């Protein structure tokens, strides 16, 4: 039986924050990012600039978080955040924002609604994503055609509240993403616990399925939803009957404690706005043993 009461602490100034890049600029909405002499418009989102005072003579394209005044071509920021330049793309990255789906992203979502031949999935974005019946693996073989019975039995596959890992295959005009779970590593998630963090803390990397040394698997969704579960060796041909089962396997006490510890590490990292990837989680996990005071 444990109850702990604390007094509030004053905020401290973070004097040890290093500025990574000299050209790191923090901007607010309406602030000018750079000035250009001439520009050309390509597609929906980009404008090229030839001259730029603050940065080297790059021809820069404009991306998310910026807009430009038509007349003089000045690029201004529309968000409050840090300016990011990746090769020739200039964008503004905020701390807290809703997730914007891009094709190829791995996300973790929760089913909110079962509709006609599709599911609506909450992915922490401004619109619910759509999972079509044709985008999932049907039990009984990869190439099975979907039948009318499948349409009527959609709840057998995914029901309200289910958590799944999926990949963004496209976006609709209104900003809703279309997701698919055609690979065997995607699909219904079980044997674990759910954590939610701000989406900007999860960055794109080669793989989002990490196996930690403590016997715990972590699925880092780019939308900020993370699934921490017991380690299951990946099986090439998973039994088709069990991919849609919601029965958990038995989990040992030690694994349960590790899962809880990893969840707490992730929440602490999120509270301090640190990037979340497998190395930061592992570091935090090891540190947590140093400060353990409750057995």
């Amino acid at each position: 039986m444990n109850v702990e009461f604390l007094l509030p602490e004053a905020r401290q100034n973070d004097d040890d924050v290093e500025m990574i890049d000299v050209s790191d600029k923090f901007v607010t909405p309406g602030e000018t990012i750079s000035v250009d002499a001439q520009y050309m418009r390509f597609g929906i989102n980009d404008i090229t600039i030839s001259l730029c005072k603050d940065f080297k003579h790059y021809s820069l394209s404009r991306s998310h978080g910026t807009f430009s005044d038509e007349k003089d071509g000045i690029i201004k920021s529309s968000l409050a955040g840090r300016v990011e330049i990746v090769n020739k793309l200039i964008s503004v990255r905020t701390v807290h924002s809703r997730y914007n789906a891009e094709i190829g992203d791995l996300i973790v979502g929760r089913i909110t609604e079962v509709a006609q031949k599709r599911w609506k999935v909450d992915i922490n974005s401004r619109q619910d994503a759509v999972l079509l019946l044709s985008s999932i693996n049907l039990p009984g073989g990869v190439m099975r055609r979907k039948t009318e019975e499948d349409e009527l039995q959609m709840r057998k596959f995914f029901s309200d509240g289910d958590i799944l890992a999926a990949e963004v295959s496209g976006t609709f005009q209104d900003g809703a993403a279309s997701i698919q779970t055609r690979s065997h590593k995607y699909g219904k998630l079980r044997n674990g616990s759910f954590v939610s963090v701000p989406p900007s803390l999860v960055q794109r990397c080669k793989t989002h399925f990490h196996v930690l040394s403590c016997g715990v698997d972590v699925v880092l969704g780019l939308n900020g939803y993370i699934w921490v579960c017991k380690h299951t060796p990946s099986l090439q041909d998973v039994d088709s009957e069990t991919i849609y089962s919601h029965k958990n396997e038995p989990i040992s006490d030690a694994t349960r404690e590790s899962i809880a510890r990893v969840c707490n590490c992730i929440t602490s990292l999120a509270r301090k706005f640190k990037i979340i990837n497998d190395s930061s989680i592992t570091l935090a996990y090891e540190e947590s043993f140093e400060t353990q005071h409750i057995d």
Partner: protein
Amino acid sequence: MPVLISPAEREYIINGVDHNIRADGRGRLDYRQIVVETGLISQASGSARCRLGEGTDVLVGVKVEVGQVDMEGDDEVIRERKSKRGRVICNVECSPIASQQFAGRGADDFNNELTQTLDRVLNGPQGGLNLEKLCIIPGAQCWVVNIDALILDYAGNLLDMVFITTRAALHNTKVPKTIITETEDGLEFDFSDDMEDAERIEGWENVPTAVTLSKIGSRHVVDATPLEELTIDARLLVTVNKDGKICGVQKGGSGSIEPSLLNEMIQTGGTIGQHVIQKLDEQLEREEKEASKKTGSVGKLGFFAAI
């Protein structure tokens, strides 16, 4: 705030509770850490704010006003008793900033439920406060203690926090001193505006605190997180005062409880409640000592606190 939960997560949580390792590593009877601060609101007679873990944030303000004595009752004895007492009026409100489902009329039923529960415990002799002391002129005027709780953020375990914060706020509440003079028209009173003369409200240490025991599977847990709250069958709210007396029991949720488990839960609730009161009192004392150490104006951290 999640409103849906998958069967896999539900099973994970129920099994975790069974093995005494919950989703965040706590044991069944462990609370998340609570940060308490009193005296934040200068306009109120007393105030306190509590934050639980990462989420639930409750702010309670107590305002003491002069009002009419309540003299309703069937029996003459009852009326006589009531005419010599002050009154307590409670109100709990879930601010829409806590969750978007509290916007507009969404929270009305929920607010009402919380208000009635708080009112049922605090209004009456079990509420702890010395209502006789709050009477100014018997049969006419009395002090009315208005307790208003505002929920600023929601992460589970709301009622426990409301009660703990109310107790802290009442510890902080000062009632102005009244001077009663006898004139030909009867008794008249006046109270001094000087806050130095105000006395701490009597009976605050007898105000009960609440422990919500949630039945998950066949076990019960204390301090449920929002995901855990989606898996519970039934809840039992046990309010207990520092002497270990039960001041109220209320079952919630749409499940049923077996009588022996019910007895066990009431006993556990009683023990935990007393423990919570003891720790809270120690904390309030510590806060007072810290405040008296600092010379000059005492700056309250309020909403600028880091945690």
